[in-house]
């Protein structure tokens, strides 16, 4: 689960990680009020979940950027007014952009140098690792690809946890010295605490800056949580912002389905993540384009299948639907009942190709046949993909 920068900074504050003074505002008036409490130059930052907000611009006003340095409360008011309620496009949002509903107004920082510090899971070694770089403010993937020697990696053994040497290794490894290095080492320790205590999946400060006075401060905060651990952090689960989610993905999540919207025209309804990905792959293999990834899960119920259909059909691009079920725990007859129920409730406006295999397959096929619905049965995955692609208007 993703959260906003301002929420990440509130967590950082609780753990003693220095962040600029400031507050979130939901209106231009509020932005003015926050700015009144600050002195000197200020920054107004659009709060959306996507990255690249500084370079990003408004969809309907390409000269207005998502982040702006201002020198008065009136200017803060003006920029907040320009951003709020408008879609901001960044390299991560796609061409439609994401509507700005909040801005963060905070004191500007006099930057001497920018760094990058992130923490994530090191899958290869099954432990949490720091990634740090002297190339702050840049996209870390780019730095890693182009100048891998500028990337510092440090894994933390879960048995021993973070100890002081980890902090020293990172701070001195970044070339810091004196009190600045001590401040940085302390921030690293706190960052580890944030990661472990919130069950984060990603914590990123980009940039972490050293000010002209030699202080270390987090100018940005990106925190993602492990969805599987939210059950033990209700206070963090409450930070979810549903406005930032794709409405179809949100509806799927609420029905405990796994859905990802794609650009094609063949809707997919599959049980199991691996089979769902493979179904997309085989559609592409025979010349079609999948409209979505949708995993109804191992123990799909008829109601879940109905919800899945509803979600797929909300996508106006969908020209055909491919149902691919290999029954294990999920039984073919249950899925077939769900398909029939959905077709009757939702109304089937596009051709439907169904491939059933595994547990109770004969019963499932019988239910579909007796429903008198216009369903094209398929004998295997390849047959199903070919028929779905043909039904959607043929291969490209």
């Amino acid at each position, binding site marked *: 689960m993703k959260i906003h920068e301002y929420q990440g900074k509130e967590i950082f504050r609780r753990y003693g990680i220095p962040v600029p003074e400031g507050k979130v505002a939901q209106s231009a008036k509020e932005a003015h009020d926050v700015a009144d409490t600050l002195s000197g130059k200020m920054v107004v930052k659009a709060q959306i979940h996507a990255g690249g907000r500084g370079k990003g611009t408004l969809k309907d006003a390409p000269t207005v950027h998502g982040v702006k340095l201002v020198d008065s409360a009136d200017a803060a008011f003006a920029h907040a007014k320009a951003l709020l309620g408008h879609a901001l496009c960044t390299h991560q949002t796609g061409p439609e952009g994401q509507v700005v509903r909040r801005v963060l107004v905070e004191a500007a920082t006099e930057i001497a140098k920018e760094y990058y510090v992130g923490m*994530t899971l090191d899958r290869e070694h099954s432990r949490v690792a720091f990634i740090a770089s002297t190339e702050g403010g840049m996209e870390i993937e780019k730095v890693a690809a182009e100048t891998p020697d500028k990337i510092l990696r440090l894994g933390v053994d879960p048995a021993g946890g973070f100890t002081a040497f980890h902090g020293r290794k990172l701070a001195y490894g970044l070339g810091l010295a004196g009190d600045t290095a001590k401040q940085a080492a302390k921030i690293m320790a706190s960052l580890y605490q944030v990661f472990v205590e919130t069950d984060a999946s990603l914590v990123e400060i980009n940039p972490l800056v050293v000010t002209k006075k030699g202080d270390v401060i987090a100018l940005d905060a990106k925190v993602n949580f492990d969805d599987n651990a939210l059950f*033990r952090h209700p206070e963090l689960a409450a930070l979810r912002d549903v406005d930032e989610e794709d409405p179809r993905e949100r509806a799927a999540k609420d029905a405990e389905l796994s859905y990802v919207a794609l650009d094609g025209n063949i809707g997919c309804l599959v049980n*199991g993540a*691996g089979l769902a*990905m493979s179904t997309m792959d085989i559609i592409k293999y025979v010349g079609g384009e999948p409209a979505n990834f949708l995993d109804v899960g191992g123990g799909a119920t008829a109601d879940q299948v109905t919800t899945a259909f509803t979600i797929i059909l909300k996508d106006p691009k969908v020209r055909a639907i491919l149902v691919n079920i*290999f029954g294990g725990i999920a039984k073919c007859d249950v899925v077939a009942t769900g398909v029939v129920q959905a077709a009757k409730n939702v109304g089937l406006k596009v051709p439907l190709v169904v491939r059933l*295999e595994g547990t109770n397959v004969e019963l499932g096929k019988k239910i579909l046949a007796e429903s008198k619905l216009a369903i094209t049965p398929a004998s295997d995955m390849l047959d199903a993909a070919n028929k779905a692609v043909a039904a959607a208007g043929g291969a490209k």
Partner: protein
Amino acid sequence: MSVLINKDTRVLIQGITGGAGSFHTKLMLEYGTQIVAGVTPGRGGQKFEGKVPIFDTVEQAVHATGATATAIYVPPPFAADSILEAADAGLKVIVAITEGIPILDMVRVKRTLSAYPQARLIGPNCPGVITPGECKIGIMPGHIHKPGKVGVVSRSGTLTYEAVGQLTALGIGQSTCIGIGGDPVNGTNFIDCLALFNDDPKTEAVVMIGEIGGTAEEQAAAWAKAHMKKPIAAFVAGSTAPKGKRMGHAGAIIAGGKGTAKEKFAALEAAGIHTTANPAEIGVTLKKALENRR
């Protein structure tokens, strides 16, 4: 003709009285798996279906029944604890079916398991392990399998059934099928399973099913190039998956541009592994791999 489990494996079920646990225990019993005990704290002394004794702790169950393998069906918040309890009780094969265990729980579990060298964890978030005709520990549909000489190892559940179904339809049986699970931190990886199949005299070839995310397939490819004596047929799911989106499994995500199917296919091909981009041809690809060898 198998690895990890066979007809003599004595199995206990952690979470035997829960919904998933009881449902699948019945199916495993029907398949012929020797289920000797169940564990549900507070239900010790009762019997499951009138025949399988239930214990309060894994240690008691092992002591009383001589179980050597366990299947874990307990809910995610308690699953890490159950895995460690199984390892502490001396069990050798620990199959964690549970989906949705917090990642940091698994990081700690994996580190702690290094103190229990006898314990092999399979999963979590996996369909389990089956040696067809002998022993089924997990949630896979037993009837699609057929005893034989091909080992199957996969990060997926239903896609494994798909591949096994294709093999069986071609008349090709399986020695053992291992689902290693779709989580980013798991107990047993591809290399562990390839090594087991490599050393199993009755396994003649291996089907390997990977998916996007991480570098387990690339590492397995490098290992196979150096050590594998038997042909491998491989498929990687997720060629069409977009970047940065989790595709169902917690581990199936292209993060920071890494972990794409393209990279994985390239690594597998460079290692001389037979690959197919068509998931409907996994069985045929294995068949070709076997024929080429002869």
